[in-house]
């Protein structure tokens, strides 16, 4: 009975919190975008536009729900549901607090003790691309189809570095259970955060995760300039909102994963350590974790306004020529260190060395490309 109450309460809390957070993430994103572009942003509904998500929600729900005549109706209707469902489902195994210290009525993870934690998340979130592909295909529109084709190629490519970069973390923790990985880092303290041993993997994971969630600079499936709206061109009203929601939930999931896998979860020196036993310590720990997640989300938004969108061949080149070899080499390094029982701190210089090597190879490749590039002949007399 207690189990059931815990599960239901947790699901309710997670569902409500995630949806609410997503609504306000849209507002935050609009505010950040506005500030970046020297605008004001939403400020009409409520003070500082704080009721804007509510107004948007009401608008989207009350909007007409047209189904174009030329679409495949079943797939057209299912696609946004898949998009939301899968991204929300992935949250089932993501711990959002100190799991062992929850109050009696809830847990800090919906499905505890799932030993395949990360694999489950990857399996489910990569299903989200079905929503994109089906939506684009069912729309029977060339722009949508192109968007979904791009999405399939992109997501499939970036799955590989995404999984490979986590392999190192999994090897270090000896587990792919997200609770275990978080607990080990949290109990070890600041210097046991995986970021110190796997900075390169963190970078690769973050980059691939951006691509997985179709965020700038990897939002080729929905780039407005080339594809009108990409896969959701034909969608409007609440169905479009579901796609949008799916994307934002994905961003939240990814941010949770980054902070759990690499930045120690709820651990923060002096404030939230395993020893901290003051009243409401679990609340502080949730706060720390959420603050980390929030920082990563804001960073993702900053990245959006910093890096322009990749060209598609550059996108594929980044995945296959840079990220996959890098993450492979990283896994090999981790395995070597573990096999020979060397000190884990060797992983930090090794990661940096790997990164520098990649930079050297990159500069050589680019210079070779510049040398081979056809150029206008320049008369000797034209030297100024």
């Amino acid at each position: 009975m207690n189990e059931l109450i815990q599960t239901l309460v947790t699901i309710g809390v997670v569902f409500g919190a995630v949806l609410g957070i997503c609504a306000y993430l849209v507002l935050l994103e609009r505010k950040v975008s506005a500030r970046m572009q020297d605008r004001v942003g939403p400020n009409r509904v409520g003070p500082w536009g704080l009721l804007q998500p509510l107004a948007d929600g009401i608008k989207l729900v009350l909007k007409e729900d047209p189904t174009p005549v030329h679409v495949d109706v079943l797939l057209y209707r299912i696609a946004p549901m898949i998009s939301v469902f899968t991204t929300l489902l992935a949250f089932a195994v993501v711990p959002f607090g100190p799991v062992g210290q929850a109050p009696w009525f809830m847990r800090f993870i919906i499905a505890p003790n799932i030993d395949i934690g990360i694999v489950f998340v990857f399996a489910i979130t990569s299903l989200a691309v079905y929503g994109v592909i089906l939506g684009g295909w069912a729309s029977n529109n060339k722009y949508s189809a192109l968007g979904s084709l791009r999405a399939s190629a992109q997501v499939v490519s970036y799955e590989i570095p995404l999984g490979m970069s986590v392999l190192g973390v999994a090897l270090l923790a000896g587990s792919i259970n997200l609770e275990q990985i978080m607990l080990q880092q949290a109990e070890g303290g600041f210097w046991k955060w995986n970021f110190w041993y796997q900075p390169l993997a963190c970078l690769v994971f973050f980059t691939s995760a951006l691509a997985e969630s179709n965020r700038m600079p990897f939002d080729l499936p929905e780039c407005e300039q080339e594809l009108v709206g990409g896969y959701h061109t034909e969608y409007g009203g609440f169905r479009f909102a579901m796609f949008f929601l799916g994307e934002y939930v994905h961003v939240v999931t990814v941010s949770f994963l980054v902070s759990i896998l690499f930045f120690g979860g709820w651990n923060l020196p002096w404030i939230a350590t395993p020893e901290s036993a003051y009243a409401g310590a679990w609340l502080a720990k949730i706060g720390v974790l959420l603050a980390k997640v929030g920082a990563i989300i804001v960073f993702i938004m900053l990245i959006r306004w910093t890096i322009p969108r990749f060209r598609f061949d550059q996108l594929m080149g980044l995945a296959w020529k840079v990220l996959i070899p890098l993450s492979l080499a990283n896994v090999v390094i981790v395995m070597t260190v573990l096999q020979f029982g060397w000190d884990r701190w060797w992983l930090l210089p090794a990661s940096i060395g790997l990164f520098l090597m990649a930079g050297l190879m990159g500069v050589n490749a680019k210079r070779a490309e510049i040398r081979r590039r056809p150029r206008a002949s320049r008369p000797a007399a034209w030297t100024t």
Partner: protein
Amino acid sequence: MPIAHKDVTWIEEPEFGFWEATFLPAIAAGLRTTIDHITLNRPVTQQYPEVKPELPQHYRGVHRLNRDEQGRVKCVACMLCATACPANCIAIEAAPAPPEWPDRDKFPATFVLDELRCIYCGMCEEACPVDAIELTHIYDLTAHSRKEMLFDREKLLEVYEETKNNPKDPVRTGRGTLGPASEFGALPAVGPATAVESKDRAAKTESPGVIGKAPPDRYE
């Protein structure tokens, strides 16, 4: 003519170095720009309905028909504005001026200006010899139908009443008197725009720039 070689500047692609290959310094510099914008927060937005825009003095908005100091419509129905109008949006019906108006022959019986058709070029204002039609600073013109946007004489005179005391919309000539353009005989002679040589016809006239002889009694 080909461009001289010394005028050609060859620009080399900047050297692609190690740090460029790693992308990180470029991303950091970009992030700095982003964060600068976000933290400094100097919006250029104008909160329109609360804050009205500061329009330039020469802004061209809705037209008005001026009145002279006796309250009569200044327009003399000369059709110059309708002729000058490139959008062909002015329709004037002239009628003989009443006998108690000795200073003019005609006045507009109807004066209809299609505000939707107008392109707000201001040529009517330039063409008007008596400064009767002027463009104001009113820009938020709305109506419920196209018909309402056909401004007749009374409506254009209402615009005048509405805007005559606005410092942005000065009645550009002395109120009530006909403008200098109407006093053709007293018009100061304008020098020719191009260089005049002594054999030119314009150089032989009494006042330079005026070809032919202005009949002195035309407007009297």
